[in-house]
Structures are given as structure tokens and as C-alpha cells.
């Protein structure tokens, strides 16, 4: 094949596992991938999963090897399904914590944590807060090592409303936004 003529090909990638369709079997979501391919690109589906394609692919393998391969694929799929389920549950059960911290007698800051689980970029969110509330906002790491957005000023209500609206937009309206008041520990008299 000569290399004249630009050989730019546009490759279709599976919508489920983002691999080229012929590698879907290694992605752990074979069944969903097959369904997607059947709907979107029936011609490719026929090419890959039609009767003769399957027989030529497994021709080289003996019967027991075929069964082994089948079992492994099933195991992989089950693992992936479990993983996806766990992530979803984690998403639904985690909450956004809006904490009101005292900076000095009259001044407070709001610390928002737990935003990353929902796929929200903390830095972008901090910038949005800063411009929306006309005050300073930044991302820092809190004691537990998680990212936290610190907003200057006592804006608990506004932040809560904004975050709930943002989550609703994303479709996650079952999520709780929790308000906490961070009381500095009073030194007890000995």
C-alpha cells in the first residue's frame, strides 16, 4: 500500500467503554457494549459479532480454552458491574458539607468540602464563588487531606442555595447539603 493519499481514517469508538469496538471484550462491559453497538452501528455489529466472525475468532482455541475465556469474560463483567454500583452508591450517600468557621470575633468564612465526588472541579467552583459573591475564594487542603473551598464572609445560605442548584442541574438532587458550625474549642479552666 503506497503512502500517498492521506490515510486519515475516522475510527468509531464504543460509547460505553471508549475503546474501538473490536476491543470491547477486554473492557469488562461487553454486554452493554454489544447492545450499544447494535443500536448505533449495526453494520459493525454484524461484522464483529455475527455467527461466522465468532467462529473464525475462536477457531484457534480448543473447547476448554473457549470455556475458560467465557468464564473470564463473565468474571470481568461482574467485577465491573459491582464497581459501577459501588461508585453510584457512594455518590448518592456522600454529601456536601458547608462549614461556618470563625476567623475572628466578627468575621467568618465558609468552608465547602465534598464537592469532588460529584465531578465538580473545586478550582472552577471557587472562581465562580469569588465572582458571584464578590469576595475571595480559594481551594485549600483541609486536615483530612481533602480539598476544601474557603469563601471569605458569612455566606452560608447563599452558598447552600447555589450548591443545591448546581447539583440539581447535574441531576443529583437527592444529595444533602449539610450545614455545620465550627466552634473553636474553648480552653477549659484547670
Amino acid at each position: 500500500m503506497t503512502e500517498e493519499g492521506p490515510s486519515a481514517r475516522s475510527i468509531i469508538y464504543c460509547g460505553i467503554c471508549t475503546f474501538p469496538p473490536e476491543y470491547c471484550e477486554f473492557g469488562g462491559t461487553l454486554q452493554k457494549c454489544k447492545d450499544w453497538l447494535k443500536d448505533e452501528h449495526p453494520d459493525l455489529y454484524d461484522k464483529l459479532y455475527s455467527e461466522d466472525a465468532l467462529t473464525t475468532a475462536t477457531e484457534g482455541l480448543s473447547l476448554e480454552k473457549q470455556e475458560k475465556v467465557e468464564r473470564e469474560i463473565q468474571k470481568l463483567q461482574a467485577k465491573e458491574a459491582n464497581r459501577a454500583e459501588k461508585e453510584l452508591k457512594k455518590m448518592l450517600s456522600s454529601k456536601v458539607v458547608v462549614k461556618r468557621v470563625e476567623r475572628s470575633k466578627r468575621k467568618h468564612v465558609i468552608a465547602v468540602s465534598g464537592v469532588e465526588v460529584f465531578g465538580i472541579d473545586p478550582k472552577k467552583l471557587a472562581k465562580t464563588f469569588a465572582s458571584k459573591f464578590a469576595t475571595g475564594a480559594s481551594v485549600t487542603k483541609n486536615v483530612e487531606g481533602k480539598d476544601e473551598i474557603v469563601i471569605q464572609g458569612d455566606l452560608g445560605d447563599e452558598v447552600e442555595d447555589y450548591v443545591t442548584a448546581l447539583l440539581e442541574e447535574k441531576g443529583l438532587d437527592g444529595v444533602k447539603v449539610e450545614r455545620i458550625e465550627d466552634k473553636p474549642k474553648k480552653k477549659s479552666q484547670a
Partner: protein
Amino acid sequence: MFKKFNAKDDIHSRTNIKSSVQRGLKSKLVEQFPKLENVIDEVIPKKGQLIVIKCTDKLSLYAMDNEVLFYQHFDDPFVPSLKLIHRFTDCFPSVRVDRGAIKFILSGANIMCPGLTSKGATLPDENLPAGTVVAILAEGKETALAVGKLIMDTDDIKKINKGIGIEVGTHLGDGLWSLEIE
């Protein structure tokens, strides 16, 4: 190499590339991959703005329009990204591995010589020297599944048939494949 690659943690900076530097890059690319010469303007159009993304470990990703085209570790030869190879398969030297190796490659393993010399695999007839960047295809598949660097000449791989043949740089589904650049 991109097993644990996170857009948040590992990316330090991104800068635009001057067009003079961009021209130099294009010529270096064509030098490394002669077959790219005809299509280099499709890969990197003249008016396009190339961005270099600097990451941990002296790793630079060269991207355009939110898609990584190739990367470079230290001053090693450029390695095209998988998506680029899918688009221009014929422009890059390639090898075919045995079907049984696919599973291991997709979990990040390097390729041993027997995987390149067994029945299902094909190596090119002319010798490719060690250090060449090759696309890795699989038996029975048309699209590349990984990109790697030859550790031994292809002739040596055929002769000696022991040890690591190709060091895999990036494969389907790794950190680079799932990287999203805004």
C-alpha cells in the same frame, strides 16, 4: 507509563508554542516518522495552535484542540498518542502481537519476545532498530492497542526470542487515553 495519570495531580502547566518552535517540532516529527510527511499538515495544520502540557517526571504532552497528539519523556523520541495512530495507522511502523498477549498489554505489561514471534504475531520483514517507536496491533484486530518502544532490534527479537521485546508506553484505557483536557 500512564498507569496512574491524573489530570489534577500530574499536570503542572500548559503553554502555547511559538510558531517557530512549532515548525521545528513538525520537522523533527517528519524526521522521526518519514511516512508522516504527506499528512503532517493534516495532523498539525499551519494555523493550528499547538499546546505543550508539562507533567511530572519531565513529561511533556503536545496537544491541539483538546486532543493529545504525542508525548515526550525527557528528550526521548516523540511517541504518538493512540488516537493519532488510529487516525493515521499507515504512517507509523507497527508490529502484531499474539492474541493471548492482549489482556496483559491492556493491564500495562511490557511485551516479551515470544509474544512477537509466536504463530499469531507478525514482525516487519526489514529490521527496525532498537529504540524505534512502534504501534502495537493485535492478531485479528485492525486498530492499534498500544504504542511502545523497541528494546531490541526486530531481527534480534526473532533470533534471541527471550526477554522484553517492547516497552509499552501507552495503551487503550490508561491514564493518557482517558485524559480530558479542557
